[in-house]
C-alpha cells in the first residue's frame, strides 16, 4: 500500500519535425509523487513542463517510458479508459479557465458528473454544493463571461473538485490573474491539500507561486534539474 500515486519511469516525449528528425520535449524523466503531496513543477517556457503536465493528466501519452497513475500504466490504456481516469481521478485547472462559454456556471460545474453517468438533477445538486464551497453559490445561473477572472478560476476549481478526484493538476492557474487574486487562489489550493488531503500539482514559472507548495520539481531542457523542498531548490537555481 506504500505505492506512490504518481510514478514516472524514464519518460521520453519527442515530436517529429519531418524527415525522420524529431525534437525531444522530455528526456528520460524519473520521479514519484505520493498521495497528499503539494508539488510545484517550475521551469522556463519551453522547458517541457507543460508536456509533462499533459502526460501526468492523461491528456497525452509518452513516446517511451512509463507513467503509472494509481498503479495503472497509462500507456496501456484505451482512449475511453483514459477518459474515465480523467473523469474520476483527476481535476484540471487551466490558465485560461476553459469554461464552456454558452453554459451557465452551474452547468459547467455539473458537466463532469454527467460524464460520470449521473442524471441531471443529481449532478446539479452536487454542483450547487460545490459552488457553495468556493463561495460562488449565488452566481450559479450566470454565464462565465459575466464573471471576473478570479471568479471564473474558482468555478474551474469547483468543476475540478466536483467528482472528488484524488489529484488536481493546475497548469499556470494564476497566469491570467492579478497578484492578489493569485494569492487567494493559491491559498484555496493550500486549504484543499491540507483539509481534504487532495494531491496537488501546480505548474508555474513564477517562484512566488511555486513557494505555496512544499516540494518543487525544477524542469530545464526536458530534464529534472532539481527536486526537493521548495526553498532549497529555489536557492540552487538562483546560484
Amino acid at each position, binding site marked *: 500500500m506504500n505505492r506512490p500515486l504518481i510514478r514516472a519511469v524514464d519518460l521520453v516525449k519527442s515530436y517529429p519535425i519531418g524527415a525522420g528528425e524529431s525534437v525531444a520535449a522530455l528526456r528520460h524523466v524519473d520521479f514519484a509523487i505520493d498521495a497528499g503531496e503539494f508539488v510545484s513543477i517550475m521551469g522556463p517556457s519551453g522547458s517541457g513542463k507543460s508536456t509533462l503536465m*499533459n502526460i501526468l*493528466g492523461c*491528456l*497525452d501519452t509518452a513516446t517511451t517510458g512509463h507513467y503509472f497513475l494509481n498503479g495503472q500504466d497509462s500507456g496501456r490504456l484505451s*482512449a*475511453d479508459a*483514459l*477518459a*474515465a481516469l*480523467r*473523469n*474520476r481521478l483527476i481535476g*484540471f485547472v487551466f490558465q485560461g479557465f*476553459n*469554461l*464552456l462559454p*454558452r*453554459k451557465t456556471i452551474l452547468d459547467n460545474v455539473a*458537466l*463532469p458528473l*454527467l*460524464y*460520470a*453517468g*449521473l*442524471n*441531471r438533477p443529481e449532478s446539479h445538486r452536487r454542483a450547487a454544493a460545490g459552488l457553495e464551497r468556493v463561495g460562488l453559490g449565488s452566481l450559479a445561473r450566470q454565464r462565465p463571461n459575466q464573471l471576473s477572472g478570479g471568479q471564473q478560476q474558482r468555478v474551474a476549481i469547483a*468543476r475540478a473538485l466536483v*467528482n472528488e478526484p484524488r489529484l488536481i493538476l493546475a497548469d499556470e492557474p494564476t497566469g491570467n490573474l492579478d497578484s492578489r487574486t493569485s494569492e487567494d487562489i493559491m491559498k484555496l489550493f493550500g486549504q484543499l491539500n491540507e483539509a481534504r488531503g487532495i494531491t496537488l500539482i501546480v505548474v508555474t514559472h513564477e517562484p512566488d507561486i511555486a513557494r505555496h507548495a512544499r516540494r518543487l520539481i525544477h524542469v530545464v531542457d526536458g530534464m529534472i534539474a532539481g527536486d526537493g523542498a521548495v526553498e532549497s531548490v529555489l536557492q540552487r537555481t538562483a546560484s
Partner: protein
Amino acid sequence: MIVREILGEAGQSMGANRLRTGLTMLGMIIGVGAVVLMLAIGQGAQYMVSESIASMGSNLFIVLSGSSTSGGLRTGSGTAPTLTLKDAEAIEELPDVEAVAPVMPNNAPLIHGASNWSTMVAGTTPSYFAARDWSFVSGEGFTENDVRSATRVVVLGQRVVQNLFGDEDPVGTTIRIKNSPFLVLGVLAPKGQSLDGRDQDDTALVPVTTAQRQLFGDQFPGMVRFMMIKARTRESMPWAEQGIRDLLRSRHRLRPGQEDDFTVRNLTALAQTAAGTTRAMSMMLGSIASVSLLVGGIGIMNIMLVSVTERTREIGIRMAIGARRRDILLQFLFEALMISLLGSLIGALVGFFGAFAVSRIVGMTVVVTVWSVLLAFLVAASVGIFFGFYPARKAAGLRPIEALRYQ
C-alpha cells in the same frame, strides 16, 4: 453519459446558433416538403387513372368490326358491317365470357320541353350495364323484352339529365329523340372521364333494335358497330380472347391465312399500361424531389463539419473532464439527427399543406398518404445519420491534447 443527457447537450448547442440551425434545417424542410408534394401529385394522378379504370368496368374487351374498302380506300376499323347481333349471341355462349353488349352508336338531338341537347345515343342490350359495371341512381334499365319488341325507352347519363332536366328526376317523363317520343326508364350513376378524356356521362342508351329500326335506319339489318365483352375473371381473359377470335373467324367463314375482318382489343390491358405509365411518372417525380433531400443532407454534413472545427476547443475541454469518444460522437450525431428530424417534420407539414394549396389553386387531384410522409421521414432520418456520422466521428477521433490546444 446517459443518452438523455447527451440529447440535452445536443439540443443546447442547436439552440445556441439558431440562425445557422434554421438555415441548415431549411435544406431538409425543402427536401422533405418537395418529396411529399411530388408524391402527392403523382399519387393524385394514379388515383385519377385508377378511378377511370374502375369506371370503365373490369376484364373488358372491345370487338370492332373490320375496315371496309370503297374505291380502293380502306376506311378504318368499325366501318365494315361485319359484326352482327347473331355474333353477339354466339359469343355469349362461350364459357369464359360473362356478358356481351353489342353497341350501335350514333349522334342524335334529344328534346325535352324547351331544352335540347345533342349526344351519343347508343343502341345496346341489357348486358351493357353488366359489362360496364354501371348502376342506376334512379329508375332501372331496359330488359330483353324491350330489345325483342323494340320499344321506345331510354336510359340517360348524368350529363344529359343535367342539360335537359336540371335538378328534376326525369324517370317516367317522355323526351323526343329525332322527333320520336321515348319514355325515360332510368338514370345512370356518374362515371366521370374515361381514360381518353371523353365524358362517359354524356350518353343515352336505347334498345339496340329500336336504334336500328326506328332511329338510325336499317342499312344493314342486324349489324352492330362494336361489342363490349366482359370475361369471367382476369385470368380467363387470354382464353376468352382466343375463343372470341376462333368463333368469329369460323362464323365469318375466314380461311386460314386470311386476315381477320374484326379487331379484338383488351381494354383492361390498355388500362394497366396507363396505370403503369402514371406510376412511373410518380416515381420519377419522387426521385427528382429526393435529390433535394440529398442536397439537404449534404448541407447538414457541411454545417456539422464547420461546427466540429469551430468547437474543437470545446471538445477538448469536454474530453479533459472525462467525455468518452462515444459521448462526443453521440452528441454531434444527435445534433445532426435532430436537425434532420425537426426539418423533415416541418417539411412534411409544408408538403402536406402545399399539396392542398396546389389542389385548390391548380385544381389538380392530390393524394397524401401516410406511407409517403413516413417514407420521406425515414429517408430524412437516414440522411441525418449518414451525413452526421462523418463529422461526429471526426469530432470523437480528436486527440484530447490537440483539441484543447486548438485556438
